[in-house]
């Protein structure tokens, strides 16, 4: 990368970095704040000027860093003539605006915010003009929409400001979306997202059948941004912004982004009939319409806004012509429009600032009170009118010249006549700006006594007005940059000569007609204005508001229709959509030949199958009796476990059967607090609908299973089987996959399980602190309470079973690496053993004998598993690499010690802790609910009963038992 390339990166970065500062520096005062905002801008401008000589010689400076190469997205920038012109405009005017805003903003306005927004916007704009990657360009494009939203709505307390900002964001944002589509199509055709490559592929793109959609989408983006008819309406509403914003965004930069894009894409898109008719016509209509409306606007800024619309139309039209000379004219007019329009906006801002009104009808006669402002405003306005010796004249002359030999649908006169009318109206409103504001008698009813502002405020417009005159008198000074930019637009090697006098040409006649006609029109302004006010015309904002309201109503009805608060509706929609998609996929490709032999069905399995089907059907039809449904669910789970045994999945069978047990216990506990019956309330129609959906889903999933079960697949399991013993040290491949090959997954899963446990615990606590607690206390359990809650037999059996179950758990855990078993199953088995104690002797008794908190157990499990994994680092191996060895202790057989076992211990502890925490939380609710608690192993002591020979009923009264 060249030194210039480094500068390019800095230029792109500086405004964004600089945006961080003003918000902080405002504490040091307003002037310091303005300076910190000016420094990055000035630095960027200086770097641009250092690069300028090379670019003017025709070199292109590039810089590139790969960003997301998979997406074709790279942070690549380039600077050619067009980019240089725009970048200089952005930074140069940015500096002037920074100065102007320092004096314009009042003490109440948060200045730090303003400069931050301004720099963000400036960075986005600079990004657009120097991006070499269209995806990057699109990002910056959207950033300008966003940052301009902040700037337009800067005065948050003004409703017009907020509405204008929303409207601008909606229109330009929507256009930006369209443009993304168009750009992606272009990138697809060209096979690259780099502008440089796309610019080379013009032929292919114009020949492609996707050219027209791409063109329309991109033009939508450009037209919305550059306020072309019929999207012009947002610009006047954006004038609610502070004047520095209007001067910067709405004359010099953002609205020119659309024009810039059309110029940038000119070599690729221009030159076809579609381009000519769409772009030229839009530009022409916008130019005339904007100028016409501008003539009748009383708000100074609205007048300037519509005049900007008109001039943007002019630029669009010139680019639409598709000729090289027109491109030169467009580039030149971009510079000229920038100078006079920014000066005019600042003048309008000064007038507003000094007189406290922008209403032309309340102004007039200011030339004596504000001579400096008058001078600046007049020069700029006359340039806008196209009066000789000012720069506006030169480019307007070139425009008329081009218009005079453009045919439009076979008509030789349409374009020249319309262009002349546009120019004529432009003269009229420009002169109106001067005469109705500054000329005429001094009035005595200004809202505020005006005088010229301090130097700092008029310095920026004065500089621009000087430029207007200098370029107007000595146009050759601008030749270098115009040539470089025009060559970048057209891709040709042009040597235009900018002259004041072109001889007596049709353009001169048109110009004369425009000036004289404009003067006449202005003299008739009063009657015309009265007629204009009376005439009916569409109000863009009302139409826009209705459109937005319609869109909101539409999306609201769609959202509320789909999202009515009932989960059954979302699930129904989701199921139907999934089944439909699956069916479409099936219809699309069909199925291959079956390759597998079917296995025979032994009678035992057939019986199990019947049990499963009957139980499922029974759950569905009899689910209203909730307890019975739970029993049936248990049958299903057991049938599935048996199926796993038969189908060579012993580990799954073990897991399923133990999970089954804890699930049923959990549901039983929950059912204790829930209604025992589900009311029959679904109407028959709903049942039929749900039944149809359910059958479709079942048929779809079952059909899919039936389809793949008869076909072979390539599996990656061969690797696991081969390396299970050699690499993982275990013969139970499933367990080795869990603790070794896919150990990271398992690690994640036990964490999830632990979190679920904590979640339930937390929910329980939230519940017991809330209004539900009161309800729980008053709950009535009388009907389903057992007389003997902790029967002797059960207590004795569970005590005996406890050590046996623990030994079984330990056995299952230890053999897991080589035989079916492992941490998951062992954790569940031990959990069941503990649960039996809770069931047999009650919550309090068991709780008292608990040595370790379940929270701690979950935490320990995760930590042990994690440390085991990290231990591999000590051996210089990746996370969770396992090591193993065989140990021979004399009395026992040779056995294996593997780090994987330690990992499995973590799994074991987490599973045990999580399961116990879940069930513990549910049973705590029971205790809270005023249920009596026993501290002995049983509700009554059988020994005591015999010894004292007391009547049993006095002792079994639960209320007398201690808590």
């Amino acid at each position, binding site marked *: 990368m060249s030194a210039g390339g480094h500068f390019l990166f800095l230029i792109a970065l500086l405004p964004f970095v600089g945006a961080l500062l003003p918000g902080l520096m405002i504490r040091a005062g307003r002037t310091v704040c303005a300076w910190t905002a000016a420094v990055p801008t000035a630095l960027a401008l200086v770097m641009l000027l250092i690069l300028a000589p090379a670019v003017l010689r025709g070199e292109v400076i590039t810089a590139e860093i790969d960003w997301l190469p998979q997406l074709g997205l790279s942070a690549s920038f380039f600077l050619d003539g067009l980019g240089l012109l725009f970048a200089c405009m952005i930074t140069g005017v940015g500096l002037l605006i920074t100065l102007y805003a320092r004096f314009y903003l009042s003490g109440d306005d948060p200045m730090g915010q303003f400069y931050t927004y301004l720099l963000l916007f400036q960075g986005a704009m600079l990004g657009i003009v120097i991006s070499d990657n269209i995806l990057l360009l699109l990002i910056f494009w959207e950033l300008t929409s966003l940052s301009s939203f902040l700037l337009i709505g800067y005065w948050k307390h003004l409703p017009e400001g907020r509405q204008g900002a929303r409207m601008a964001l909606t229109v330009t944002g929507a256009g930006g979306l369209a443009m993304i589509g168009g750009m992606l199509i272009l990138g697809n055709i060209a096979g690259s997202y780099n502008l440089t490559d796309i610019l080379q592929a013009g032929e292919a793109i114009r020949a492609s059948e996707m050219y027209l959609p791409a063109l329309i989408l991109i033009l939508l983006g450009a037209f919305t941004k550059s306020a072309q008819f019929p999207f012009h309406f947002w610009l006047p509403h954006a004038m609610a912004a502070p004047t520095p914003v209007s001067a910067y965004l709405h004359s010099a930069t953002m609205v020119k982004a659309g024009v810039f894009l059309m110029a940038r894409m000119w070599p690729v898109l221009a030159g076809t009939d579609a381009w000519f008719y769409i772009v030229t016509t839009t530009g022409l209509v916008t130019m005339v319409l904007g100028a016409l409306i501008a003539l009748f606007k009383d708000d100074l800024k609205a007048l300037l806004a519509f005049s900007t619309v008109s001039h943007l139309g002019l630029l669009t039209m010139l680019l639409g012509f598709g000729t090289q000379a027109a491109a030169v004219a467009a580039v030149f007019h971009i510079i000229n429009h920038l100078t006079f329009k920014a000066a005019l906006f600042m003048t309008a801002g000064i007038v507003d600032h000094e007189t406290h009104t922008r209403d032309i009808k309340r102004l007039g006669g200011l030339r004596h009170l504000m001579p400096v402002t008058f001078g600046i405003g007049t020069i700029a306005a006359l340039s806008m009118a196209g009066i000789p010796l000012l720069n506006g004249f030169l480019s307007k002359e070139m425009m008329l010249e081009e218009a005079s030999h453009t045919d439009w649908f076979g008509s030789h006169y349409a374009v020249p006549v319309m262009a002349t009318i546009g120019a004529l109206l432009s003269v009229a409103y420009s002169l109106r700006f001067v005469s109705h504001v500054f000329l005429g008698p001094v009035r005595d009813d200004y809202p505020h006594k005006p005088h010229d502002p301090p130097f700092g405020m008029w310095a920026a417009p004065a500089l621009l007005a000087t430029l207007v005159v200098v370029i107007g008198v000595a146009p050759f000074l601008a030749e270098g940059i115009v040539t470089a930019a025009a060559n970048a637009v057209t891709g040709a090697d042009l040597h235009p000569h900018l002259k004041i006098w072109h001889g007596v040409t049709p353009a001169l006649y048109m110009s004369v007609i425009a000036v004289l006609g404009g003067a006449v029109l202005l003299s008739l302004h009063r009657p015309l204005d009265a007629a204009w006010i009376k005439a009916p015309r569409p109000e863009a904002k009302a139409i826009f508001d209705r459109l937005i309201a319609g869109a909101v109503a539409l999306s609201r009805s769609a959202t509320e229709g789909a999202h009515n*608060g*009932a*989960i*059954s*509706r979302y*699930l*129904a929609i989701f199921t139907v959509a999934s089944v439909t998609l699956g069916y479409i996929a099936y219809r699309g490709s069909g199925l291959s030949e079956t390759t597998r032999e*079917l*296995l025979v*069905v032994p009678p035992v399995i057939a019986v199990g*199958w019947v049990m*499963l089907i009957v139980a*499922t059907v029974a759950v*569905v039809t009899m*689910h209203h009796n*909730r307890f019975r*449904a739970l029993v049936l669910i248990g049958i299903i789970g057991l049938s*599935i476990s048996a*199926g796993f045994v038969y*189908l*060579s*999945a012993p*580990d*799954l069978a073990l*897991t399923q059967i133990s*999970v089954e047990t804890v*699930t049923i216990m*959990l*549901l039983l506990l929950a059912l204790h607090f*829930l*209604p025992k019956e*589900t*009311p029959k309330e679904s109407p028959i129609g709903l049942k039929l609908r749900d039944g149809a959906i*359910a059958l479709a*889903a079942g048929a779809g999933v079952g059909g*899919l*299973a*039936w389809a793949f*079960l008869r076909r072979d697949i390539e599996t990656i399991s061969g690797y696991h*089987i081969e390396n299970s013993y050699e690499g993982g040290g275990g*013969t139970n*491949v*499933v367990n080795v*996959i869990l603790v070794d090959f*896919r150990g990271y997954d398992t690690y994640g*899963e036990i964490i*999830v*399980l632990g979190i679920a446990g904590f979640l*339930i615990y937390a929910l*329980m606590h939230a519940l017991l602190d*809330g209004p*539900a607690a009161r309800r729980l206390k008053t709950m009535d359990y009388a009907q389903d309470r057992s007389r003997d809650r902790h029967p002797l037999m059960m207590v004795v059996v569970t005590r005996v079973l406890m050590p046996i179950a623990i030994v079984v758990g330990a056995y299952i855990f230890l053999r897991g690496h*080589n*035989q*079916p078993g492992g941490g*998951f199953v062992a954790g*569940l088995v031990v959990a069941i053993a503990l649960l039996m104690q809770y069931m047999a002797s009650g919550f309090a008794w068991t709780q008292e004998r608990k040595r370790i908190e379940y929270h701690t157990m979950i935490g320990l499990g995760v930590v042990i598993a994690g440390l085991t994994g990290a231990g591999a680092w000590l051996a210089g191996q990746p996370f969770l690499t396992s090591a193993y060895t065989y140990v021979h202790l004399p009395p026992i057989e040779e056995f294996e010690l593997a780090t994987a076992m330690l990992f499995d211990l973590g799994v074991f502890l987490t599973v045990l802790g999580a399961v116990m925490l*879940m069930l513990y939380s*549910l049973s705590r*609710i029971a205790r809270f609910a005023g249920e009596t608690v026993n501290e002995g192993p049983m509700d009554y002591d059988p020994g005591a009963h015999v010894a004292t020979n007391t009547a049993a009923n006095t002792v079994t009264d639960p209320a007398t038992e201690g808590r």
Partner: protein
Amino acid sequence: MEIVVASAVGVLTAGGVYLLLRLRTFPVILGLALLSYAVNVFIFASGRLAIDQSPILSKYGEASYTDPLPQALVLTAIVISFGMTAVLVMIGLASYLEADTDRVDLDAAAEGEDA
């Protein structure tokens, strides 16, 4: 054998979906449990069915094994679906105790008790 597994998956799915679409929390939880069975068996079956080919390496030389990978996936899925069911049960319970109704749709619950 294949038709047995496929039909079981289909029936379990249909039952699960039907119950999921009910209006009370408890049937929805039951439906979720049925759907979990269906999904677990479905994933397990994606390794194709095999009899007497447990993925436990044999000490006695060559043997053929069923696909262990779906089994490992399903093993954790079974445990996780238990965790999910438990969370759902707790949420259902909490909403019943707070709102005094176990309906799953908000609007009807707002109308008051009709259960």
